[in-house]
């Protein structure tokens, strides 16, 4: 208990001073290992940023030369000419709608499955959870035809068929449900019943209790699963590749677009635009992550511990 008392009395800065003063040789070795990995992570990214402002000759001259002048026109070419701006906007729209839909439908299903007893509850729960184990690609062929056939439906067809954002969003939601339902129902089960009971006595309806009491109480879980879903859906490549064909290039998401620019760079010989496009795809993610890193790290780890 001495240590605890000691810790309380030490102010942060004093502790830091002491730590620095006592940096032993092993601690030095720890830093060497950690710095090596930092370099491994940072250098490819920095190298890409550097190449994005080089000229074609500089890129092919020597991999590590510094650019003579900063050629921001590479960025302009990638943004407008290679449509990176459009792809990014598409990704943002699809992921925003997809994540919102996933969280809404997923939390509703998880809540009912976690807190209401009725016939078939267990079966539905297991149906959802079994989806956790199976990668999307196992049923890729039939999925393509399901979406194609839905596109032939009257009225809604043109909104949810192949080559539509709506179809992509619905597929994202459906494939995010197993994970979302599994973790959120575990979360809902841990919530106390007393508050909900009091609300019921006051005459609140079932759905009101859910939206105004239980959902806010489950906030840490909801935030964490939301982050997982945003990262997961942003990451998607195979599903959009199947559902958004070359005829719907204006609807392509960023991963698809960048991969396509990479293939095209070989033919067009515009490698500097490729590096600029890559930098544009990387930079916003790093900025958003750095701003929210505390919440993201905390959110992701609570999700895994539940």
């Amino acid at each position, binding site marked *: 208990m001495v240590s605890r008392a000691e810790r309380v009395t030490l102010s942060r800065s004093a502790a830091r001073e002491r730590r620095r003063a006592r940096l032993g040789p092993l601690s030095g070795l720890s830093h060497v290992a950690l710095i090596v990995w930092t370099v491994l992570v940072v250098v490819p990214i920095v190298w890409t940023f550097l190449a994005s402002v080089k000229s074609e000759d500089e890129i092919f001259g020597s991999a590590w030369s510094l650019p003579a002048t900063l050629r921001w026109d590479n960025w302009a070419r990638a943004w407008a000419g290679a449509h990176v701006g459009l792809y990014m906007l598409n990704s943002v729209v699809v992921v925003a709608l997809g994540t919102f839909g996933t969280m809404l439908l997923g939390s509703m299903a998880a809540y*009912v499955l976690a807190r209401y007893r009725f016939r078939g509850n267990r079966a539905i729960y297991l149906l959802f959870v079994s989806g956790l184990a199976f990668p999307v690609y196992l049923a890729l062929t039939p999925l393509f035809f399901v979406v194609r056939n839905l596109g032939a439906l009257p009225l809604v067809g043109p909104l949810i068929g192949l080559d539509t954002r709506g179809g992509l969003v619905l597929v994202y939601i459906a494939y995010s449900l197993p994970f979302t339902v599994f973790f959120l129902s575990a979360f809902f089960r841990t919530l106390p019943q007393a508050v909900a009971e009091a609300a019921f006595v006051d005459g609140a309806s079932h759905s009101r209790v859910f939206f105004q009491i239980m959902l806010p109480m489950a906030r840490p879980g909801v935030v964490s699963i939301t982050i997982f879903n945003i990262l997961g859906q942003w990451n998607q490549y195979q599903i959009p590749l199947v559902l958004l064909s070359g005829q719907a290039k204006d609807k392509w998401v960023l991963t698809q677009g960048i991969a396509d620019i*990479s293939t095209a760079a070989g033919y067009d010989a515009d490698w500097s635009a490729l590096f600029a496009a890559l930098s544009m795809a990387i930079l916003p993610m790093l900025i958003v992550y750095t701003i929210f890193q505390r919440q993201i790290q905390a959110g992701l780890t609570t999700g895994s511990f539940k």
Partner: protein
Amino acid sequence: MADGRPRRPGRAGREGFVRARFITGFLAAPVLLYLVYVISPYAQAFSIAMTDWRGVSAAPRFVGLANFGRLLGDGVFWRAVGHNALLLVLLPLLTLAIALFFAFLLNAGGQGGGVAGVWGSGFYRVVFFFPQVLAVAIVAVLFQQVFRPDGSGMLNGPLIALGLEPVGFLSDPGVAFWSILAVLVWQAVGFYVVLFSAGMASIPREMFEAARIDGAGRVQLFARVTLPLLWETVQVGWIYLGIAALDVFALVWVMTAEHGGPDHSTTVMAAEVYRNAFQYFKFGYASAMGVVLFFFTVAFAVLALRLSRRERIEF
């Protein structure tokens, strides 16, 4: 499983109706979406797998188990399965080992002989996590450039400048698979460092201090205190990475030559399903692959559940 509203006698019928309406209302949309987009494709895969369906407009003809027979002799498919199996072992092993090492350094590698974390651990955690927030397809394009075979490659540039032979990271069939594995590990480590750090932070400090007083060194601290107490988190990580290893697609499809090449040396199951369905338009054959892989995945899931039953240490 506490139920919602307390029941009042005499109003049970009305209550029951309201309750049933609520349950149905909340479940209808998610279950419908799930049945249409997830369950029905899996179910259809089995019937499509028994047809010779080729081409979007052609009419499928029933051929029984012929596709499965052909699959047995398909060398490329089995190479893909072998690569996934290898990834299933190596990806978790390498990632978890590296992540545990760094998490231990960050949390217990500092002064005081292994009780405190190193200075700047917050900074390292942030940087190590960077690759995790990038989409795999983007990382694939990035490393395509890093691995370029000539002087313009990030790695080969310096090698050539030093007068050494350039390495065919993606062009040498003997090397390409290991390049894929390296990128997968590069991207995954950060998440597990953060995961394990959180796990280690929840271990009471007194445990480390007690072990220290008993004369435990750094290695012993790790092996006797940290690892056993973290075992459950390690298992969670193992299952996540196992799923990731079976799911590899974007990296192989985007980064490698010929989508899984050179000479099929990096191809994976997801790439073969995609290639057969959407490049060769052999829908029946691709579905048969899906069905076989479905059973492999079930086997993996059962195995993972079996192996993960180990006594939990309470603290």
